[in-house]
């Protein structure tokens, strides 16, 4: 196929092409928007997991303090 040779499209088919291109564009916008929302939710999930990590660290330190207070001198 020679890329320099022009291609002609019938005028009635051209409308179909335009409609389809618009459809593709619309779907692209939709996909991008969904992906953005998914990424945001993923960030929220990651933030929750980080918070859990911090909570577990805090609980651990408190339990260690309790353990020390109860059994340190034994």
């Amino acid at each position, binding site marked *: 196929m020679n890329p320099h040779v022009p291609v002609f499209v019938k005028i009635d088919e051209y409308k179909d092409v335009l409609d389809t291109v618009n459809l593709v564009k619309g779907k692209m916008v939709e996909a991008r928007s969904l992906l953005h929302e998914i990424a945001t939710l993923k960030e929220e999930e990651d933030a929750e997991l980080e918070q859990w990590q911090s909570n577990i660290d805090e609980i651990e330190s408190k339990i260690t303090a309790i353990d020390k*207070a109860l059994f340190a001198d034994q």
Partner: protein
Amino acid sequence: MVAAKAKKAAGQEDIYYVGVQQPVELRRTLLEASRITLKTLHSYERFKHIKQRRLELTGQLRSTMKDLGKAIAKLKSVLPSVPETPKPTKQAESLKQVGKGAKKGAKATPIPPAPKQVTELQKLEREIASIEEQMHAM
């Protein structure tokens, strides 16, 4: 912490008690640990909800990508077909050579039958390979 012996009543065994030095502080620490645990459980409910929403959106995205694929295929069909003159790829060349070699001598190895059930993943892989082949041929 101090251990203390209680006064022994008649006929009873020795009872020992352990003294807790800062009982209020200890109780406070315990309550705080409990509060954090509950907060984590509360956070889990929120996490579950977020994850559920993300899964729903992922399903929607999958559906949108399928629609997009269909729309692109439609665009391909609507555009005029142009006669293609694909360049011979290396793979095709090597296949030709194998074919020549087979005529001369050794027995042709039987081609394994194609699997009947094609998974969605295999289908997509084939489509990708086909598109890449077309792109290389351009």
